[in-house]
């Protein structure tokens, strides 16, 4: 049973035991708060063997303190004040700093008030075993408690408390030490460490031993090493602590809307999407039509509270101030790790985080090159905020209390998963339970006085790294609608459900009206393994006249999805099916997608067929489009089809037709290539899953391309092109088409420059054909993967393809750059793309099968729908990539663990350098399709002109090591979790040509 007592105090104590202060609420009301305090005599001093204080807890301070300081031969303890902890934490954390430290409660609380991250560091410091630190609760000890006097600032009060604590310690030691035979033995002293001159003067007056940190360190045994750790502060001046005044504005106000509109109209201001730089959080860019290059926004003030994706209005600076983009990696978490959640409202030069940030900007400034100048500017207004809910992690150092039962409201930082976004400050009552979880946070506002946007918690998604949470966070992050289909939508499905079949052929049947019976043809489908939504099938046969008849049969989705019903609306808003590694989010209910519309083998299905008559030279003699009924004879995978085609023993009709298709496809491809189509590459990898249930990734490998892949691709392209011509002819105003604009040559400048300087190669970007030809010449005989790498980099320079409505752009811009086709659309995958459904409807009307729905006659409607589809399409691609990335990460982790177990080695992979920064390298691991950063903390030489990066001899100890773009290096890959946010991070370090772990 514990002892329960009543703390009694005298009435007259009230003066020192009650504390009165005024508090202003959020609403501006002033509240008087009175708190009590119970003073006691049993707060122990913590010195080992003290006669009066008896303590059982913790490691105690040695009896005589430290004896190794020059100025204090009889031993001493140090008692630093608050500013010492705030400014010199590195020094105190050093293992060489061995003096026993007395930490006063006053100091501890002041540190907590001033900076939580530093407070957390201090707390771990106290717990470290080889440090001898004792917390003395001076505010609760009756002799040392101080009360703030009239017109005394809180700072002065604390300083006085610290002085009082120090003098108490000194007298306490002298009182409790035994005097041997009346003779006073020299006593250890307690030394007040402070950089505040005024405080030192007062202390000296009161006879308290005190020193500045520098003086103290100079007298220490390992002074030379410790002096390096001393942070340079201008604290020799009086009173370095500035009381935080009123809130200063950090950002400028936006201009009024009218002014913005007028400015844009007059060409003084420019409007565009804000893009944050993922390598450098202090930089962003806006691409506007008026400038060929993007407008650079450098620094927090110029970015003026814009968040990635916002539509902003920019004012461009004078040409003198134009700059080159940064070539340094600045990580928000590293630079601002000590920033405090609540204090970050207050602008002031004493704010460490700001100083740090300015430093980062300044060093970077110096390194910017004169060449390659880009316009710079600042954001003066926002047209539209594109804020949504962001997936975040809670930064654990920003918590004031990590106690799981705490119900109090705390302000914490939420760090978004995406590197493009700033940290979000939010208030929550459940912070401790949210640590280690993925959560959804929305931004509410961003005031001019606040460095960070403010948001609120929406909901928790689950534990970090659990599959469900990761998957859901992906879908949310990329805005993929993933709710199950509602009843109204499912009601639009045929009532027969799974039992639906093509009815027997008859004159009166609705399904058979105007449909050709192609059930006898040798149609087969070729798809990736385990494909369930088969939306295309092919056939070929030789015609009596020597020509070849080839047919592409596409699932007739428009027969089931009628315009303007709930299912159609839902499909239009979903836009596309999203494929994640372990999940598929369908655009259409799965009854259609994987059954009724899927061109499964051995069953009759409705199809929309494109049938060509091709000459033996693969020229189109004739093409016709028809609705049909087909019965696929077989569903191949790419590999099976390939095997069958290559098996010379087989001569059945199906095999022959595959061979025929293949020969035609090869000719088609050759034709396309001569026309100037690009053969692009993107880093695609395939994830092997353990089994369909567990979905644990086993390994990662690159996707391989078979001949049959290209067979299917060629025919799909052909079908798309033919359909595009037809619908454009019939509906010149509203045809749903797809185009790929030629990239502006400025996009290629950097790549061209690198290639020229590093490899002596020329990249001709005048047309897609020229580009294709010069890409073919980009070869490095020693490195076969080099060509692929260049192709990947070239792909990144291009614009992305988009859907458009034929009436809304001029006819010259219809072309598809990558495919070198003057016109193109998407027709072949109506199960998983909504644009294809529209193309189906239009084609169906073009062949007078079904009248066109009124909405497809309206240009604005088509434009609107395609806008959504374009966006969804982009998001789906990114979500798919992110999902692969996540699994690559998991697989990597498994591999790292395995290799650690087996031979305690690291996972190493070959990688190519694709970018150089001033303090790091961007590398690409083609085997894993993974891009990463290798950063260096130590001094390196960076030659921006030649894209090389030199680690000087001083660091390597041997000779200078130079690394350039396109060099092959070996990196070791490790997956580590961020300690604060639990965000998994791939960390790469260089292994060859030089080990960078120490750098």
């Amino acid at each position, binding site marked *: 049973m514990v002892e*329960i007592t*009543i703390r009694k105090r005298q009435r007259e104590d009230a003066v020192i035991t009650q504390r009165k202060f005024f508090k202003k609420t959020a609403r501006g009301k002033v509240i008087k708060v009175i708190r009590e*305090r119970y003073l006691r005599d049993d707060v122990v001093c913590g010195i080992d063997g003290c006669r009066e204080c008896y303590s059982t807890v913790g490691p105690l301070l040695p009896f005589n303190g430290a004896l190794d300081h020059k100025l204090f031969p009889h031993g001493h303890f140090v008692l630093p004040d608050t500013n010492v902890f705030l400014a010199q934490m590195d020094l105190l954390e050093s293992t060489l700093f061995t003096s026993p430290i007395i930490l006063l409660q006053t100091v501890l609380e002041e540190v907590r008030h001033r900076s939580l991250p530093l407070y957390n560091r201090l707390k771990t410091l106290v717990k470290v075993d080889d440090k001898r630190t004792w917390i003395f609760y001076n505010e609760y000890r009756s002799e040392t408690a101080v009360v703030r006097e009239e017109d005394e600032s809180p700072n002065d009060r604390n300083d006085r408390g610290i002085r009082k604590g120090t003098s108490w310690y000194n007298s306490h030691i002298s009182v409790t030490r035994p005097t041997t035979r009346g003779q006073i033995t020299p006593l250890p002293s307690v030394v007040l460490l402070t950089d505040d001159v005024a405080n030192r003067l007062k202390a000296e007056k009161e006879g308290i031993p005190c020193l500045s940190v520098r003086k103290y360190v100079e007298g220490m045994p390992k002074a030379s090493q410790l002096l390096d750790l001393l942070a340079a502060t201008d604290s020799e001046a009086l009173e370095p602590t500035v009381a935080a005044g009123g809130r200063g504005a950090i950002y400028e106000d936006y201009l009024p809307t009218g002014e913005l509109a007028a400015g844009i109209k007059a060409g003084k201001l420019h409007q565009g999407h804000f893009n944050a730089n993922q390598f450098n959080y202090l930089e962003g860019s806006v691409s506007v039509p008026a400038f060929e290059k993007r407008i650079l926004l450098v620094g927090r003030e110029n970015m003026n509270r814009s968040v990635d994706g916002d539509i902003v209005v920019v004012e461009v600076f004078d040409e003198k101030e134009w700059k080159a983009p940064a070539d340094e990696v600045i990580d928000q978490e590293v630079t601002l790790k000590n920033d405090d959640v609540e204090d970050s409202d207050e602008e002031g030069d004493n704010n460490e985080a700001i100083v740090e940030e300015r430093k980062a900007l300044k060093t970077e400034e110096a390194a910017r090159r004169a060449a390659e100048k880009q316009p710079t500017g600042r954001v003066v207004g926002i047209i539209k905020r594109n804020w949504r809910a962001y997936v975040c992690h809670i930064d654990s150092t920003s918590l004031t209390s990590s106690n799981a039962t705490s119900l109090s409201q705390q302000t914490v930082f939420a760090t978004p998963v995406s590197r493009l976004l700033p940290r979000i400050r939010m208030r929550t009552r459940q912070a401790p339970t949210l640590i280690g979880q993925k959560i959804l946070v929305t931004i509410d506002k961003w005031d001019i006085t606040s460095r960070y946007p403010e948001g609120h918690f929406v909901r928790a998604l689950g534990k970090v790294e659990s599959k469900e949470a990761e998957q859901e966070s992906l879908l949310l992050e990329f805005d993929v609608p993933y709710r199950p289909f509602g009843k109204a939508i499912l009601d639009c499905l045929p009532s027969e459900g799974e039992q639906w079949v093509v009815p027997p052929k008859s004159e009166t049947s609705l399904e058979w009206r105007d449909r050709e019976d192609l059930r006898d043809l040798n149609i087969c489908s070729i798809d990736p393994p385990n494909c369930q939504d088969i939306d295309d099938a092919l056939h070929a046969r030789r015609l009596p006249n020597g020509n070849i008849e080839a047919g592409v049969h596409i699932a007739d989705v428009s027969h089931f999805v009628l315009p303007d019903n709930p299912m159609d609306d839902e499909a239009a808003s979903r836009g596309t099916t999203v494929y994640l590694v372990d999940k598929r989010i369908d655009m259409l209910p799965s009854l259609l997608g994987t059954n009724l519309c899927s061109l499964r083998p051995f069953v009759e299905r409705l199809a929309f067929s494109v049938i060509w008559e091709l000459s033996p030279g693969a020229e189109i003699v004739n093409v016709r489009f028809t609705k049909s009924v087909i019965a696929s004879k077989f569903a191949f995978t790419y590999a099976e089809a390939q095997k069958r085609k290559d098996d010379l023993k087989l001569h059945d009709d199906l095999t022959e037709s595959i061979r025929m298709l293949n020969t035609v496809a090869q000719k088609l491809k050759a034709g396309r290539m001569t026309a100037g189509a690009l053969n692009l590459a993107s880093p695609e990898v395939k994830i092997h899953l353990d089994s369909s249930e567990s979905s644990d990734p086993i390994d990662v490998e690159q996707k391989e391309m078979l001949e049959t892949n290209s067979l299917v691709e060629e025919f799909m392209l052909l079908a798309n092109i033919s359909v595009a011509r037809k619908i454009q002819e019939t509906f010149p105003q509203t045809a749903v088409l797809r185009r790929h604009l030629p990239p502006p040559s400025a996009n290629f400048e950097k790549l061209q420059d690198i290639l020229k300087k590093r490899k002596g190669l020329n990249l001709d970007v005048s047309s897609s054909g020229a580009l294709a030809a010069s890409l073919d010449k980009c070869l490095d005989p020693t490195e076969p993967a080099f060509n692929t790498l260049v192709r990947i980099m070239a792909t990144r320079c291009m614009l992305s393809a988009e859907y458009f409505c034929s009436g809304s752009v001029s006819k010259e811009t219809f072309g598809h750059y990558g495919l070198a086709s003057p016109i193109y659309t998407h027709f072949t995958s109506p199960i998983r793309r909504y644009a294809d459904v529209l193309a189906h409807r239009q084609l169906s009307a073009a062949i007078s099968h079904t009248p066109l729905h009124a909405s497809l006659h309206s240009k604005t409607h088509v434009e609107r729908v395609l806008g959504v589809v374009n966006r969804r399409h982009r998001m789906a691609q990114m979500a798919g990539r992110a999902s692969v990335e996540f699994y690559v990460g998991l697989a990597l982790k498994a591999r790292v663990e395995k290799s650690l177990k087996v031979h305690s080695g690291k996972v190493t992979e070959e990688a190519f350098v694709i970018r150089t920064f001033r303090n790091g390298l961007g590398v690409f691991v083609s085997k894993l399709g993974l891009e990463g950063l290798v950063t260096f903390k130590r001094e390196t030489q960076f030659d921006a002109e030649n894209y090389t990066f030199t680690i000087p001899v001083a660091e390597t100890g041997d000779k200078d090591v130079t690394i350039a773009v396109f060099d092959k290096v070996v990196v070791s890959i490790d997956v580590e979790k961020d300690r604060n946010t639990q965000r998994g991070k791939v960390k790469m370090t260089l292994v060859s040509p030089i080990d960078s772990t120490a750098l």
Partner: protein
Amino acid sequence: MSSRIEILNDGGYRSDGRRQYELRDMTFDMSEQAGADGSAIIAHGLTQVLVSVFGPREAKMRSQTLHDRAIINVEVSIAPFSTGDRRKRARGDKRILEFASMIKATFEPVVQTSLHPRSQIDIFVHVLQQDGGVLQACINATTLALANAGVPLLDFVCAVTGGVHAAAPMLDLTTLEENDLPHVTVAVMPRTGRVTLVSMETRLHVDRFEEIFRLAGQAGSVLHKEMRAAVRERTKGVVDAMGSGLRTSDFAEDAMMDDT
């Protein structure tokens, strides 16, 4: 800035310098209030409550009288100046009514109402100052006021609030702590060890409940000693003032109260 205050620091001190199981300073003032039959002002730290008891007397409302026992009527008023932000609570405030009914329910099994049929006992509770543990202060003050009024009670009722921070239980919470911690107020009758009230308005983990509950009960008996001493002293003072030889009954009362 309240979030920047540690509820229980590494040294084992609470924000006001107490340790986990230490109760705040308390004072009992049982001096006469004009008009009231018995009254008490009790302070737990900065929380201060005044209770006045009238009765047993004839019930004002005839219709409500019970033929076999007295009715207890509790009215609570919270002074607008009792908290930092001045807030006036209406008489019909649901929170106050709930408070009153809690106090009533606590005392119904303790007051020997059957000795006073067809009468009424009025208890007026005035919260003068709030700093956590208002309910416990109200109950303790009511006990003393009833004793002071000479209303026959079966036992003292002693209430203490217990809370839990992480895994550390603590007693007698201040406002600051109450806002942050799950807490329970337990009222016990120390002689029999019976519990007359358990009130919990926050969520508390089941595993923690028993510990806190037991601890609050124990704290109740510590409180009991203190309250008994106060009653004794008051009685002694009154008796001395009367200056007569009613010693025997005084002893008898003592004997009864020592019977714990």
